[in-house]
């Protein structure tokens, strides 16, 4: 039921009350995560199965089925939450729907096989809140994702949505809202960390008119997907934040700039805007308060540089997304040269929380200079991948071990964590590696007798990450284990940035290409120590002279890896060896004696370089091998080794001898 346009605060409250009255709080709700991550593992089929089974069991009126936004725990998807009990089922198949309805909904029993099992203690956990992945989180802005259908404004209103907007529009003057934002200590979540309240204040005072507010949902950062999940899972919280911001600044028009690669986000945001407009929560004379604000969606063209505010505005104007120098601030002259306040998705979503709970409450969360929570996209070689929202100041150890559950392959070791995407850096987390110790000693970072200080206990906030040589960025956190080559990672980011550089200024356009050339040389075994020095010099120049932050921070991934993993660079340059076995030109693949002869690698090999009979030791014909790594990826027994180029035959010869030795011994014993 949708009422006519709500024309007063009372009308909204009455509407909310009627909605809540209609709903039975004891009613069972099955929330199936339908974020993009879960969609990729087939959640739509699970939702359909639930719908069919509910109809078959005649429970359609007693049980509510919701396809919600991202619940965060992508690793375990597709997942479902049974409320009000909070039972958490994971890795669902469509056939499980019947099981859950028969046993849990009707029978009141748990389906043990679908519950989360703690990997080490093997303990079965029933409730979502008790799972270690969720336990240490503080889901201020992500919490509602699992409770609402993102395409239903009624759901959002039932959960108390738009109360902050009402509070701001009726009881707070614009100056007071800005004061409140300043007091809360909220800093921009897009990566730069500029104080939001100060930006708003500056924009309000700027004399130009009209003024614009923009939500930057152009999440181009590889390895980060929190903005996407918010747009998909809780679009109204972004709208609400934007209305409050617009009121505080004195703007009547807004834009949401979304990546075109995020079709579900575009869809859900469009629905949300449509619904809010129909109800009169945006548009002219919002709830009879006399304030007008409307907004529209603009789809981006897929250029990373459009994350930069000036480039994004150029793009919105229908031009090429080239940034300009910011000696004139965008809060003075932004979109169409009018004062413009641009904030990131997560920043806008924080606004209603601050207004609702108060600046003081908010400023108690976090560290001295970084308040509130931050959503991180925890991915890579970690056990529990997904989105985690944690209070600022939490240590890397807590994120990686307590929430992340440690490295995904127990046979490998944690090596590093990359934060801040292409603008950020790679931080060392594994300290027992003697190579790393020697490297830091050689570079003069520590004394010979000193222990390497692990960054695992680094409190994660804006300033600490910057101090450690990385940055917060938009919050991607990519875990790497001993299989990741740090030179290759640096090269990866430079290649990305070279492709994405808009080409307007010379240092970025030319400098990144030269740095990339050097890294390509190092990775192919043709580098020298002189190259490492050139890299450091180039990095300095590019940082100092680039026009925008894409170029300004481009050398970060290189510099941080040179600092923390100099030994690995030296191995490439001097020994012509890739310790992690990633750089193709420096690696040979070979099979060792742990091979069980399962044939998997033989099937995977594209060049028929692997020979062997079933259940017998396989061999790689080195001349035929193209080092594609397909066999390494597929082998379940860790029998494929990536070793120094040219050593393949030696390892295989040894394996052959050892493989035959026990066979001979057994044969002798049986005689």
């Amino acid at each position, binding site marked *: 039921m949708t009422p006519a346009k709500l024309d007063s605060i009372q009308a909204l409250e009455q509407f909310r009350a009627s909605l809540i009255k209609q709903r039975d709080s004891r009613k069972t709700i099955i929330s199936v995560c339908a974020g*993009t*991550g879960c*969609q*990729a*593992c*087939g959640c*739509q*089929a699970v939702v359909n199965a639930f719908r069919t089974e509910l109809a078959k069991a005649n429970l359609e009126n007693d049980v509510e089925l919701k396809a919600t936004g991202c619940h965060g725990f*992508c*690793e375990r998807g*597709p997942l479902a939450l049974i409320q009000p009990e909070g039972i958490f089922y994971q890795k669902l*198949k*469509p056939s499980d729907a019947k099981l859950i309805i028969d046993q849990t909904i009707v029978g009141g029993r748990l389906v043990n096989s679908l519950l989360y099992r703690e990997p080490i203690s093997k303990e079965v956990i029933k409730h979502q809140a008790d799972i270690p992945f969720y336990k240490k989180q503080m889901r201020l802005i992500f919490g509602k994702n699992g409770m609402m259908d993102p395409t239903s404004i009624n759901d959002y209103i039932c959960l108390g949505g738009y109360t902050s907007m009402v509070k701001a529009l009726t009881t707070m003057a614009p100056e007071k809202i800005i004061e409140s934002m300043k007091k809360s200590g909220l800093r921009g979540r897009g990566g730069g960390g500029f104080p939001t309240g100060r930006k708003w204040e500056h924009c309000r005072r700027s004399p130009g008119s009209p003024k614009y507010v923009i939500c930057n949902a152009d*999440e*181009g*950062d*590889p*390895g*980060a*997907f929190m903005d996407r999940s918010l747009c998909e899972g809780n679009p109204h919280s972004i709208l609400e934040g934007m209305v409050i911001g617009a009121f505080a600044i004195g703007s009547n028009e807004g*834009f949401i700039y979304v*990546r*075109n*690669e*995020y*079709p579900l986000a575009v869809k859900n945001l469009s629905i949300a805007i449509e619904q809010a407009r129909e109800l009169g929560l945006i548009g002219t004379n919002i709830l009879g308060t006399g304030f007008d604000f409307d907004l529209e969606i*603009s*789809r*981006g*063209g*897929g*250029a990373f540089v459009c994350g930069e505010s000036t480039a994004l505005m150029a*793009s919105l*104007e*229908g*031009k*090429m997304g080239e940034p300009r120098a910011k000696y004139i601030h965008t809060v003075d002259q932004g979109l169409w040269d009018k004062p413009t306040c641009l904030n990131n998705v997560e920043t806008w979503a924080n606004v209603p929380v601050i207004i609702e709970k108060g600046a003081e409450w908010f400023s108690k969360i976090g560290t001295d200079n970084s308040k509130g929570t931050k959503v991180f*996209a925890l*991915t*890579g070689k970690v056990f529990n*991948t*997904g989105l985690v929202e944690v209070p600022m100041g939490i240590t890397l150890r807590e994120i990686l071990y307590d929430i992340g559950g440690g490295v995904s392959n127990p046979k490998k070791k944690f090596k590093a964590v*990359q934060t801040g*995407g292409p603008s950020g850096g790679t931080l060392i987390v594994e300290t027992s590696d003697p190579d790393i110790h020697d490297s830091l000693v050689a570079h003069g970072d520590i004394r010979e007798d000193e222990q390497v200080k692990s960054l695992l206990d680094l409190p994660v906030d804006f300033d600490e990450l910057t101090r450690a040589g990385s940055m917060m960025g938009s919050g*991607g956190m*990519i875990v*790497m284990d001993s299989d990741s080559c740090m030179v290759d*990672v640096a090269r*990866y*980011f430079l290649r*990305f940035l070279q*492709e994405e550089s808009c080409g307007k200024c010379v240092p970025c356009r030319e400098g990144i290409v030269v740095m990339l050339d050097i890294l390509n040389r190092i990775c192919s075994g043709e580098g020298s120590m002189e190259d490492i020095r050139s890299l450091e010099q180039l990095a300095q120049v590019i940082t100092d002279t680039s026009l925008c932050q894409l170029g300004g921070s481009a050398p970060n991934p290189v510099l941080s890896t040179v600092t923390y993993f100099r030994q690995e660079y030296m191995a490439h340059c001097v020994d012509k060896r890739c310790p992690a076995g990633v750089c193709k030109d420096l690696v040979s693949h070979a099979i060792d004696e742990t091979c069980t002869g399962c044939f998997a690698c033989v*099937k*995977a090999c*594209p060049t028929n370089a692997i020979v062997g009979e079933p259940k017998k030791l396989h061999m790689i014909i080195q001349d035929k091998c193209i080092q*594609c*790594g*397909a066999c390494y*990826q*597929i082998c379940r027994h860790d029998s494929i080794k990536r070793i120094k180029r040219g050593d393949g035959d030696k390892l295989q010869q040894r394996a052959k001898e050892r493989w035959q030795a026990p066979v001979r011994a057994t044969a002798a014993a049986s005689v």
Partner: protein
Amino acid sequence: MSDHPETNFDLEQRITAIVKEYGAKPSALIMILQDIQKHFRYLPKDAMEMVAKKMRLPLAQIYGVATFYRSFSLEPKGKNHICVCTGTACHVRQANVIVDKLERDLGIKSGQTSADQQYSLESVNCLGACALGPLVTANDVYWGNMTVSKVDKMLAEVRGKKTPRTEEVA
């Protein structure tokens, strides 16, 4: 002569409809071009000229935008679009092995379209489902946690024109 299958009359109607949907304002240019590309699988020259005329923008600006952004192509793309995510999370989980495999199997390099216009292979920088890396999309269907052997399965499905799978549990 036009380089696309539609007659000029059809083309004009279609573009009028698309421009009308967003309004002929500069801020809608990217979206208009995206919709045109979605229909033709690339941006035909005639279409861009028509957009310039209808929106009263210089053709140079339309070309500027069409060549600046990654999502646009001036060359026709294949019927089946395979896209490998090579974002950081996918990269550390060896997305390059998957790209290599697809390049070999399809006989084209990343960024190219096969001669019979059946397949386009592309590697993109992030599809935003990083927890499931390496990730591939085949005609907008997501395939998470890709392995070399799953690629065969995926290609069989794309080639066989089977109905999109209803269930894929990684």
